[in-house]
């Protein structure tokens, strides 16, 4: 038992440190968020139906698993990502190919209104991936999510993203997200092509089978 207790403690400490770091950075983003006026909200809904829906669906429930679902995502997180796309500081391949262009001329007001709009939409359940023994993956993924992978020094995801993966004021919602998208992001975070100081560290020791398992588990949540 001793062999597992100590790593868990270290992981818990790491997770706490991560929470503190992220809390500090999100506090900055939240301070910068402009108020969403009724006119801005109306424009955002129009933007969602004209632009965002091509990938994410008009109400943030993307159909192709290449694109993340946005419905129900935390508004602060959507705003922070949009600002990162515009500043070109989020640099993973899909960000460069798609979102840099989309966000390039968006104002903070538009971004905040869009973030607010999508955060208020009802998330749908994702369709399960075909050709995968999802049940087995989900079981294993649940363990990775809640307990981490102590042998590899992987912290439990639930420590930050909440037990129900619904996110918080500091951490994004993961529940119901497409597994394919989550896996891509974990790979990008592990390789550093997507820079995020906390997740770069957490994804570092995460092995690809564990990424897949936890992604399928999160996709199954709703």
């Amino acid at each position, binding site marked *: 038992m001793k062999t597992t207790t100590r790593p868990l403690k270290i992981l818990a400490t790491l997770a706490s440190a991560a929470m503190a770091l992220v809390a500090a950075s999100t506090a900055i983003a939240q301070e910068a968020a402009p108020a969403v006026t009724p006119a801005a909200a109306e424009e955002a809904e129009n933007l969602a*139906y*004209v*632009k965002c*829906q*091509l*990938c994410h*669906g*008009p*109400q943030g*429930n993307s*159909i*192709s*698993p*290449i694109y993340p679902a946005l419905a129900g995502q935390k508004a602060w997180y959507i705003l922070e990502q949009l600002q990162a796309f515009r500043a070109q500081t989020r640099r993973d*391949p899909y960000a*460069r*190919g*798609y979102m*840099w*262009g*989309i966000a*390039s*001329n*968006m104002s903070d007001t*538009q971004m905040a209104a869009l973030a607010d709009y999508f955060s208020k939409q009802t998330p*749908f359940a994702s369709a399960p*991936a*075909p*050709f995968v023994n999802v049940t087995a993956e989900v079981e294993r993924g649940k363990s990775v999510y809640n307990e981490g992978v102590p042998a590899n020094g992987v912290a439990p995801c639930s420590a930050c993203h909440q037990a129900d993966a619904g996110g918080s004021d500091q951490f994004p919602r993961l529940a119901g997200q497409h*597994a*394919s998208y989550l896996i891509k992001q974990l790979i990008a975070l592990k390789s550093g092509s997507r820079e995020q100081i906390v997740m770069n560290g957490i994804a570092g020791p995460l092995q690809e089978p564990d990424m897949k398992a936890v992604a399928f588990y999160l996709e199954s949540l709703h």
Partner: protein
Amino acid sequence: MCAHPAQALPLFARQTGMACLACHTNYPELTHFGRMFKLQGYQLDDGKDIEVTSDEGKQLVSLPAIPNLALFIMSGYVSLGKALPDSGIPGALSNKDGIQFPQQVSLLYGGKIAPHFGAFAQVTYDSGPDTFNIDNTDFRFADTRILPNKTKLTYGVAITNNPSTEDPYNTTPAFGFPYVPPEIAVGSLAGPVINAGLAYQVAGPVFYALWNEQLYAAFGFFRAAETGSTSPGNPITGSPAPYDSGTSNVPAGNNPYWRLSYEYDFDRYNLEVGTYGSRFKIYPGGGNALSGLTNNYTDVAGDFQFQFIGEQHIATWKGTYVKEQQSLDASSALGLSNPTDWLSYTSTDFWYWYKRKYGFTLGYISTKGSTDPIAYPSAPTLCAANSCGVAPGTPGAFPVGVTNSANSNPTTNQWITELNYQAWLNVRFTLQYTHYTKFNGGTTNYDGNGRNASDNDTTYLLLWFAL
């Protein structure tokens, strides 16, 4: 007429601020996003539109600040397997190869015109006939709604000049394989009407709907349209239309076109299966009245596309099969063909790209058809003093063959392979080799004048770029 491939457009990149790779695996093949962008009426913009509103706050205009124009240029070198017979000197040969510089120059407009209304329009200079013509063009209105059951419906109407131009997949003829056939090549005898057989000679609306980014249905109809340099128009008024007996192959009335497909997206893959078809009634014209009997072409096709889009590797496998029944009431009454004929067209192609830089393609196309000694004469084509297709008995006429079929059958089978190098996303070098295992019904001496199918093989080096 030959159909020109539509291209990836830097103008779309300018309009949307997005890289070409968002819409294309390799141009002109579209990704899932590219398909959505097209069906949505090319509405995405970079947020810099010029907008004017009335005093009541009603939007009067919303158009891109910079016109979405682009140039697309292709230059090519083609070498035939064996030189063609000389058309003026019996027994002599023509040059074995040729350069087209440029082969094609297209001026394109693509993108948003107004909210919910967009266009993809292309005017092409073609060095073959040395003419400008309207290429694949589509004006469309589109919108998206959420249905009561929370699923998504995109719907619209596209006015196009070539059946299947409205379609978002690269399995249908307008934007299908092969994307860039060499123009300096021997054309085979026959192909289904829906395979660009009436491209730019017809126009019409196609109504479509896409449910939940998965189920796509379209229905439209096409009528004869003015085609500029290829038609004499109306000789009495001097107007480009209405047509009369001076024009050949004029579609009669409304000719239906339909399409149904289903796409399934999972992980980084997407699979599409579908069906499409058309029924065209065509007056032979060309000295015969545009009334009475018509030639009727019924095309029914199936298609599939399987795409994998990774960050390093991209692969696509797709294919289509078309079966055309021809009820040639008009031609047979004039003694120009069998009463009925049929054609089938099978095409499949595989593409692989590494880092969007190095590409490999392998494709196979087979056209089969019924034997028709009247429509496909067995006697070798005749030339006299550099004028070909002359009637037997013309002074100085001698046989050259090449374009006829000794057994009056149009069956032609070809393999196409390509190596591609994409120096930048808008600059591509293509080396293409086409090998015919059968041409116009035969493998050896298919024209009765000593030419073999493989003599029509082509080696094609192409530079294409867009700006």
